[in-house]
């Protein structure tokens, strides 16, 4: 087991290097440089100023030298400073937004699980019933509705007409003057709409997946056996069928680990949430290489770790895999 883990971790290193090399090349292939945004089409800028700025950022060196320098810094976990005018360390910029994005994604994933799994089971146990068809319509409506549109409608309803919930942002203006209990309540209020809306879109996938798994498991011989033994339907479904149907969901969970740091630009813009989606989008648009690379490396590491985690938990859950 330990050897297996060690081997897996070791193979991740060349994989990661390959990913960074490709990412680095691709992002530099995109036309434009980080200095363009501040300098181009600005009447007050002369050619000398442009060259001066490019030297400051080390952009005058050949690409492989730039990559090597970047890699050397990465080896000591230095992601460098952002090329944006604030010039702050990339890790700081990502770090201050990471908790926000992870919180929203975790909450939304928990909500999806809490709703989609029972929904999937219920649909699978009554296939093609009215309930099954109604939930199908419901989750697909959620899947199809454009987030920004639904978000705006709910903001108008709950924020403006009913005045129940705040419209956007993470905290109220008077947050600092509130007591600790009210501060927590204030945060909860601000999170309700974003979490609800991001979960609504994800319901379809998970509940359909759960339904399909469950249907397949129910058709298996051992379920027939369990029923033949005279077990109660509740025990058959929740004890024997559910456990097996949940197995593939673990893979799915492992694969969604990198998704935890992924934020949606549109979603974050609408709700004025300072999350990672906006940060990386702006990073790409302004060709902020260190920031984009920092985000890609963290994403790549999380993807690889997520895969590993999924494999490991598989081994724990399924004895057949453990034997090898």
């Amino acid at each position, binding site marked *: 087991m330990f050897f297996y883990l060690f081997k897996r971790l070791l193979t991740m290193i060349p994989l990661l290097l390959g990913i960074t090399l490709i990412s680095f090349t691709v992002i530099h292939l995109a036309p434009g440089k980080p200095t363009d945004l501040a300098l181009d089409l*600005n009447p007050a800028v002369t050619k000398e*100023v442009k060259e001066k700025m490019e030297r400051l950022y080390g952009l005058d060196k050949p690409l492989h030298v730039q990559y090597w320098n970047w890699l050397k810094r990465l080896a000591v976990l230095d992601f460098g400073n952002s090329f944006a005018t604030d010039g*702050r360390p990339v890790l700081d910029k990502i770090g201050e937004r990471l908790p926000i994005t992870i919180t929203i994604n975790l909450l939304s994933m928990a909500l999806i699980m809490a709703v989609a799994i029972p929904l999937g089971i219920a649909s699978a146990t009554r296939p093609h019933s009215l309930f099954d068809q109604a939930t199908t319509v419901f989750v697909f409506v959620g899947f199809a509705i454009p987030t920004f549109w639904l978000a705006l409608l709910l903001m108008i309803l709950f924020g403006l007409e009913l005045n129940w919930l705040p419209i956007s*942002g993470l905290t109220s203006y008077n947050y600092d003057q509130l007591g600790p209990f009210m501060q927590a309540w204030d945060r909860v209020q601000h999170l309700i709409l974003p979490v609800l809306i991001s979960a609504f879109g994800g319901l379809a996938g998970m509940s359909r997946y759960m339904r399909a798994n469950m249907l397949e498991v129910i058709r298996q011989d051992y379920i027939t056996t369990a029923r033949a033994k005279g077990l109660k339907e509740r025990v058959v479904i929740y004890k024997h069928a559910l456990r097996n149907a949940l197995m593939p969901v673990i893979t799915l969970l492992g694969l969604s680990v990198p998704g935890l740091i992924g934020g949606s630009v549109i979603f974050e813009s609408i709700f004025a949430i300072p999350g990672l989606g906006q940060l990386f989008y702006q990073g790409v648009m302004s060709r902020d290489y260190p920031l984009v690379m920092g985000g890609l490396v963290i994403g790549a590491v999380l993807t690889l770790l997520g895969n590993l985690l999924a494999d490991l938990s598989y081994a724990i859950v399924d004895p057949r895999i453990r034997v090898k």
Partner: protein
Amino acid sequence: MNSNTSCPGLPPLKILLVVLCLFLATACQDTEPPPPQISGPVEPAYGDAIVSGTIGDASNLIPYIGSDVSSSEVTGLVFDGLVKLDKNLEIEPNLAESWEISEDGLTITFHLRQGVKWHDGEPFTAQDCLFTYQFVTDPDTPTPYAADLMQVETAQVLDPYTFRVKYKRPFSRALYAWLGDIVPRHLLEGVNVRESPLARRPIGTGPYKFETWKAGSSIQLKYNPDYFRGRPYLDRYVIKVIPDSATMFLELKAGSIDQMGLSPLQYARQTDSKEFKARFNKYCYLASSYLYLGYNLRNRLFQDKRVRQGLSHAINREEIIDGVLMGYGRPATGGFKPGTWACDPNIKPVTFDQDKARELLAQAGWKDTDQDGVLDKDGIPLAFTIVTNQGNSQRLKTAIIIQERFKEVGVKVKIRAVEWSALLKEFIDKQNFEATIMGWTLPLDPDPFAVWHSSKTEPGGLNFIGYHNEEVDRLILSARETFDQEKRKAAYYRFQEIIHEEQPYNFLYVPDALPVVASRIHGIDPAPAGIGYNLIKWFVPKQLQKYHYQP
């Protein structure tokens, strides 16, 4: 009112919503009652705050380094220049009480205000002015704004309150360069500017002191009680980051922000209710920018000025302004802001005249010989692509309207919207385009050197259309080297005549700025400079104050 009675005056969208959510039994109410009316004259009072909505977070709060709008909004309140612009955009004293310009126009001597203190209590002196000059022109300072101060030959401190700069040659823009913020020497000297804490916690001499910054969310400024022009009335100035303009508008209606810039559509269609007008005041004045259709003059399609004139007559500017700006703008006539001293009022916008357009194109040899609806000459059709940047719907709509009008006179146009950075690198800087729709922000001083002088036609230069006219070059340089406004004006009037005749750009429109401010805030006095110039005089009468702070 309960949920069973319908809400009067709700637009269909909201009724739909209410129906959709029938299961929610609840009362329908206005989010915030309109402020009570005050009778009699209003007394200025200290207190309250203004919350301003902005679409992007600030980046760096050291002046000259952050070049985005939000950073400038903050540094503009935290720092001061030696001079400033008054309501009519004329230069007036600020940190400098007075100044003299020598006979030959080469030397400016500033006499500084005494007793001004930085927000940390240190006195402000001429050393700070000298340092600002050194700071901006230092090759290690990553600033795009060094060019104007690079014209200074020597800068010297005569005594703690006298500062003198000497130029290599007379430079008409010299005073405008000193509109720039003065930075504190005692905090920035000998410091690596890219690591200075001032980028996140600025210290200046201005009306507001920096208080807090929540990254990506808000920046809060607190009044400076010792401000040399008098303490501002509003206790706090808050900038709230809301990237989406629809959300920002909802926040405005909910009362959580007090000020924002409206889109023409919001201004015309969504802000006319009685309730809205009671709670907010809308303003409308000409913005300092213009939109144009520029032709790459190296391309042989556009080398004949009759072609450019003809195309210009084929454009209906009023129609574009109505369609794209809901009427909130006016036709542009040249590269200067209408109503300012440099802009020649005798030059009228090019008229919409399709017959004249066809005639001019025919004179240039473009006729539809093969009857396919597209003009041609020597077997080449008059067809080209207009490039513009992606994500700017006003520019794209303008392009589409122009495309339709050009089609009517037999000119075939394709439109291509390209991501900003790629547009600049692949098309504009390499001068690899046929025509482009872009805009210029008009600088405070009208000097058109950077955009129109022929020395700026090299790759990456701003004269990317490749305009070259010896008389224009001469006029621009002569206006640049005199302080005599009448002489500059004469040169610029002639310059506009030439550009108007040659039409290297088809000037399109100057949009209106459409800000809205909560009506509890008094003391706003719209002027050619906009509304923000007298912010320290804005106030909320005692009985209308919304936010309260411990002193």
